[in-house]
């Protein structure tokens, strides 16, 4: 199992051997003299607590990554008038990066124009990243 061509550190070898020996032992032997339901309950609690913490850490990493991109990447925070948004989108209609039919702009509500503007700016930012 562990041979001189790639010798493991004794601590690593010990823990790996312990892991494999525990795995090889029958469940009945592992639980001999123990309250299986209590052990299971501790395990479920451990898993639930770990999942909760893992979720927090993933979220924190995502927040840190967003913060590292800087304020210029957040088009939602930059105030813009509907007119400016329409003008931008009218120009974008001629930009091969965007699939946008200029004639549809006149038919869109102000809210839709602003939403589309923000989407286009986000694409613009990610292209430049």
């Amino acid at each position, binding site marked *: *199992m*562990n*041979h001189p061509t790639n*010798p*493991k550190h*004794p*601590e*690593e*070898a*010990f*823990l*790996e*051997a*312990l*892991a*494999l*020996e*525990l*795995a*090889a*032992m029958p*469940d009945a*032997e*592992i*639980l*001999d003299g*123990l309250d*299986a*339901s209590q*052990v*299971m309950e*501790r*395990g479920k*609690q*451990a*898993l639930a*607590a*770990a*999942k909760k*913490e*893992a*979720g927090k*850490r*993933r979220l924190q*990493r995502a927040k840190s990554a967003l913060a590292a991109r800087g304020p210029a990447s957040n088009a939602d925070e930059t105030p813009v008038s509907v007119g400016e948004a329409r003008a931008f989108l009218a120009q974008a209609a001629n930009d091969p990066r965007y699939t946008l039919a200029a004639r549809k702009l006149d038919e869109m509500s102000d809210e839709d124009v602003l939403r589309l503007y923000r989407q286009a700016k986000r694409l613009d930012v990610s292209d430049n990243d």
Partner: protein
Amino acid sequence: MSAEPSTTPRLSTSEVEAIFQGFGPADWQRAETLASAAVQGLVGWSPRDLLHEALVGLLDGSRTCPVGVHPMVMLASVMRSIVSNARQRVAASPVDLGVRVGHVDGEYAEDTRPAAHGEVLLTPERVAEHRELLAAVEDLVKADDELQLLLMAWADGSRGDEAMQALGWDSKTHDAVRKRLTRRLAPLATEWSLR
């Protein structure tokens, strides 16, 4: 474990979670025994702390595992990495509040640890209590020759039939000693969350 070459297929976090969701009571007891063994000699960590950190690392993707590795080996490897880092921090700085991790917001009724992490200041006296893992485990089994022999075999990379032959034991003797050793390493109820 995360230092494996990037071309080796790794389990996804959802695959890892599915493994743990499938654990029965015996699997959790195995995991607790591994955690208890791995923290031997390390002041400031309980077996529960270590199991928590190992599970979190595997579930949040910060620690990964190659496909095909036995779940217990996966846990053992992650735990060893965590405690190895913890021992290095202690060696670098005796007074390190960051050593205390894994506070689970009091979700466990029996968690009576002080809330202030400053309670776990590692004074020079406590630092001196730190033992290397094998030295601490050897201390645990020093009164039992057979346990010491099996421990040495495992630390040497021998287990199962190989260890039996090297030690000159029949399977009945080997299984009995193995059971005694794993029981000695398993956490006592009072040790599970307090250290």
